[in-house]
Each structure stands twice: as structure tokens, then as C-alpha cells.
């Protein structure tokens, strides 16, 4: 995947606990990991934004071991569900979590992470193209994983290097979890050029983050719409950050107000601001708005990345060739992932998409060919950058609360659970908050006499949307 040898003494990773690794150190971890892991197999990588997690991840990829990247803080019940379904050969976990997995024993440690071997041998095969697996929808408990190939990951990282014009003096600081596709793309692309990753578990709302940022001279970071809401609240515009060269945004559509504000801020300060578009199903990135168009094309997510191609398809399946007409956004490129996996039998599967992805987003393009997302064809929301499938939430509630009448709707960052039984409202909300692991502020309940349905019993979600404004 990467050619670390040519970057030898460059610093690859600096963590806020003062751990540092050069690319030579990283090569050592790759070699040791190669000796510790037997053959091509599946490993669960329980990630925090720490040096050991990143180094271990790089070592798995370079050794052709297939990692499933999961958040180390994920709900234990959900993790057990994943473990039962995928039966990984190894776990790579923060060493403080080493003892909580029965049936696994430690075989190697590095930089605060331990490799635990499963006593049970795997009984399934991995497709030779398969590089890594990521979860898709927030954390609704669905064991569905996106299958990304070596070609997917390397082509997407190279395209990102090209349009962001990355070089070895970049020092991006982590603001997103590394098990999240956008966070991972920052790691993958910067490893391509021998740059230095600044990794921290601290977030934007913590002093430790900004101290680390300033001490280490961070040059860039990425953020989902909610990150930008926070930066706005922090009055980021007034901060003195001389090392900052560029900022990127993805993971949902920024409000026009914030897009404009940050575009103007960037212009004034002489830094670059990239609004981008992507999905885990396309490895990470599909589109970007060139920084010099950030003000002029405010509200647009831009054009396809180098090597990629966008088109719009109308409801009859025909390509739309005129500007300002809405259709479903379809993307073609080497970064369109192989497909999904829902069980171990799916891991042997090859490419099911043949380089074409129907995004589920409705879009239009202007006369200059810049794309604008205008809505969604499928029922999902983005909450703090996480894709949350509303049908899945409905199913989750109904299977946990026997006989309940419930349906979800909402707008990005605000999900409304419609119920008929007021007595269950608090309990249902607490359940959804717990299972998604997202802050409770994103959820509210709304009591109706009945959930609107058509004659065949199908929920009329359009009817529910009318109540959203009343919230």
C-alpha cells in the first residue's frame, strides 16, 4: 500500500502522550506484526486515536491481514455481536482492555496495544482483493460492514493527495475517530506522502487539543458539519493558529451560513477550505470543491475527485445532461467499494458493484458543472457525521419493545421518534441513545394518537415530516 522506506527518518506519528514513531519505527512494527500473525486472516482493531492503534493498522495492511476497524469505546453488547458473527483470528486492543476478552491470549504488544489470538481457528476464507472492513451506519448495531479493496484504498488515497496537494511537511491533527471512513482517509493519504500524523483522543472542546495543536504546529484538520458548529461556537475565527494551512469538511452538508462564514474566514486568513463529499461505500471521497471556489460556489460540494466521474439519473433511469435538474447522484471510479458483508460467508465475495455507486443522494449540477446535494432518496440522517438508517432504528425499537407503535423521522443532527405510548417515551429514547452511542441531545420523542399508515399498513413517513416543524 505505502512505501515507508523512502521516508525513513521522517516522523510518522506523534501522539499527545509524547509517543513518537518515525517511518523506520513503523517498518519495525510491520515486521514484528508479520512474525506475530500467522497467514492472511481477520483481525478486529479496537481503535482510539493513539499511536499504537495507527501503527497496528498500518502493520495489518502491509502484512495483508484484514482489519475490521471498530471504536474501542463501542457498546460491549454490540461488540460481542460482531465477535460472534465474524469470529476474528486476532484482536488488536488497547493493552488496558487485554483482560476482558475470554478465549483470546496476548501474543505481541507494541505502543500500548496488544495482539490477542483467538483460540478457535477460523473456518472461512477471505477474498484476495479484500483490504479492510468498516462499519457503515453510525452504530445502530447492524453487523453490516463495507468491503474495501486494496485498489479502493490506494486509489482514493492517491486522489486525495493530488487534489489537496499533500506533501511530506503536512502535519494533520486528528479530530475524527480513525475507525470512521473520513478519519481513516486522512491517515491513508498522509502515509502516501510520508507526512506526520498528530494523534489525540482530545476533542475540539478540550484545552489539551489546542495545546497539542499549537505545540506541534498542526497544518490541517477535517470536520463533519457538527465540528464546524462547534468551531463557530468557539469563535474559531479569532484563534491565532499560524501553522494552519487548510481545513476540510465532509460527512454531511454544511449549512449555507457556515459554508459562507468559513469560506470567507479562510480567504481572509490565506488558508484553504475544502468542502468535500463522500461515503464509506466509495472508500471515503467522491467529490471536492476546489478551495478557490469556496466563496463563489458556496453550497456546492464541487466536482468529482481525480479519476472519478459523477452523473445524475432521473426516475426512469436516464442520464440527466442539463443543468439545474435534480436526479440521483451516481459515482464511478476505482474507489467504489466491493460491496457489503453481513456474515463470514460474504468475506470471500468479489466485486459486486463494478465501479458504479448509486449514492442515494439527490443532486443537481449548475451550468459550470458543480454539484449540489439537494436531498436524499433513502431514509437516513447524518447525526454528528454518522449515517443513521431510520428504518434500522425503527426495527431496533420494535424488536426491543414488544408490540410498540413507533416510527422515526427527522433532519440531520435531530432525530424524532414518533410513539403512541407516552409512558414508554423516556425508556425508548434512552434505549436508542444507548445503542447508537450518540449524544441524547440529537434525539427527541413525539407522541401521536396513531402512527399514520396506508391501507396496507405501510408507515406514511411523509405525514410524519409535517410534525417535525412543530418540534
Amino acid at each position, binding site marked *: 500500500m505505502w512505501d515507508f522506506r523512502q521516508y525513513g527518518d521522517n516522523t510518522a506519528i506523534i501522539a499527545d502522550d509524547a509517543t513518537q514513531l518515525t517511518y523506520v519505527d513503523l517498518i519495525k512494527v510491520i515486521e514484528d506484526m508479520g512474525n506475530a500473525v500467522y497467514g492472511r486472516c481477520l483481525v478486529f482493531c479496537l481503535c482510539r486515536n493513539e499511536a499504537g492503534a495507527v501503527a497496528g493498522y498500518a502493520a495489518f495492511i502491509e502484512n495483508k491481514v484484514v482489519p475490521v476497524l471498530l471504536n474501542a469505546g463501542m457498546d460491549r453488547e454490540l461488540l460481542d455481536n460482531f465477535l460472534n458473527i465474524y469470529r476474528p483470528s486476532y484482536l488488536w486492543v488497547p493493552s488496558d482492555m487485554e483482560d476482558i476478552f475470554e478465549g483470546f491470549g496476548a501474543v505481541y504488544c507494541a505502543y500500548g496495544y496488544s495482539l490477542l489470538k483467538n483460540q478457535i481457528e477460523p473456518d472461512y476464507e477471505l477474498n484476495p482483493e479484500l483490504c479492510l472492513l468498516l462499519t457503515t451506519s453510525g452504530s445502530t448495531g447492524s453487523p453490516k460492514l463495507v468491503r474495501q479493496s486494496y485498489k479502493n484504498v490506494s486509489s482514493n488515497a492517491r486522489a486525495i493527495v493530488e487534489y489537496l496537494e499533500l506533501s511530506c511537511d503536512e502535519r494533520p491533527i486528528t479530530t475524527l475517530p480513525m475507525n470512521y471512513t473520513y478519519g481513516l482517509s486522512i491517515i491513508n493519504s498522509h502515509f502516501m506522502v510520508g507526512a506526520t500524523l498528530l494523534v489525540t483522543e482530545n476533542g*475540539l472542546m*478540550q484545552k489539551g487539543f489546542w495545546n497539542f495543536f499549537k505545540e506541534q504546529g498542526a497544518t490541517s484538520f477535517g470536520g463533519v458539519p457538527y465540528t464546524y458548529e*462547534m468551531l463557530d*461556537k*468557539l469563535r474559531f475565527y*479569532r*484563534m491565532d493558529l499560524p501553522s494552519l494551512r487548510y481545513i476540510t469538511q465532509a460527512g454531511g452538508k454544511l449549512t449555507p451560513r457556515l459554508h459562507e462564514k468559513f469560506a470567507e474566514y479562510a480567504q481572509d486568513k490565506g488558508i484553504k477550505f475544502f468542502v468535500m463529499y463522500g461515503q464509506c461505500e466509495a472508500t471515503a471521497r467522491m467529490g471536492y470543491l476546489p478551495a478557490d471556489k469556496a466563496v463563489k460556489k458556496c453550497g456546492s460540494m464541487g466536482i468529482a475527485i481525480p479519476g472519478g466521474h459523477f452523473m445524475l439519473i432521473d426516475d426512469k433511469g436516464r442520464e440527466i445532461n442539463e443543468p439545474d435538474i435534480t436526479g440521483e447522484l451516481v459515482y464511478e471510479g476505482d474507489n467504489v467499494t466491493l460491496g457489503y458483508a453481513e456474515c463470514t460467508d460474504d468475506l470471500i465475495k468479489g466485486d459486486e458493484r463494478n465501479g458504479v455507486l448509486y449514492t442515494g443522494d439527490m443532486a443537481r449540477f449548475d451550468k459550470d458543472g458543480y454539484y449540489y446535494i439537494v436531498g436524499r432518496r433513502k431514509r437516513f440522517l447524518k447525526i454528528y457525521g454518522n449515517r443513521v438508517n431510520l428504518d434500522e432504528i425503527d426495527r431496533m425499537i420494535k424488536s426491543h419493545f414488544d408490540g410498540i407503535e413507533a416510527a422515526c423521522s427527522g433532519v440531520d443532527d435531530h432525530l424524532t421518534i414518533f410513539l403512541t405510548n407516552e409512558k414508554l417515551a423516556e425508556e425508548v429514547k434512552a434505549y436508542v441513545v444507548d445503542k447508537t452511542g450518540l*449524544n*441524547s*441531545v440529537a434525539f427527541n420523542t413525539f407522541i401521536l394518537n396513531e402512527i399514520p399508515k396506508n391501507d396496507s399498513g405501510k408507515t406514511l413517513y411523509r405525514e410524519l415530516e409535517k410534525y417535525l416543524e412543530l418540534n
Partner: protein
Amino acid sequence: MSNLEKYINAFVEGLEIDQELVKEGLEYQAIPQWDSVGHMGLIAALEDAFDIMMDTDDIIDFSSYEKGMEILSKNYDIEF
């Protein structure tokens, strides 16, 4: 309402938590509700309650129940 009551109430509303949780020892990230998202809600609730605009440094320094009181009394003349 006293300043202390306003302060506690801002935690209850901003973080959507029970009042009994709001006490000395409560720290950022010690409960799931007080994450970065909750923090924004908390700061907004405090700014509303005391009719102030907090500085960036104070927002990111606000790491616990006690620290918050110290910041509000020192930099915003709010007495508890």
C-alpha cells in the same frame, strides 16, 4: 433563582441530565452526556442563564463542575 440554582439548571438543561448528577466531582467525559456535543449545549445554556458571551479559552477550559464555577466567578463576575 440564585446563581447556584441557575448554574445547576444550565447543566440539567444543557446536558439533559438529572439534577442529582450535577455536583462537585462532575467532569467532562465522566458521563456520556457530557461529551463535545453536550458541552456545546451546556455552554449555550450558561450563556443564556447568565446573559454572557464566553471566551474561547474559557469554553475549552471548562472541564469540571468546580472549574466552571471558578471561571464564571473570576472572569464574568458571577458570585456563588
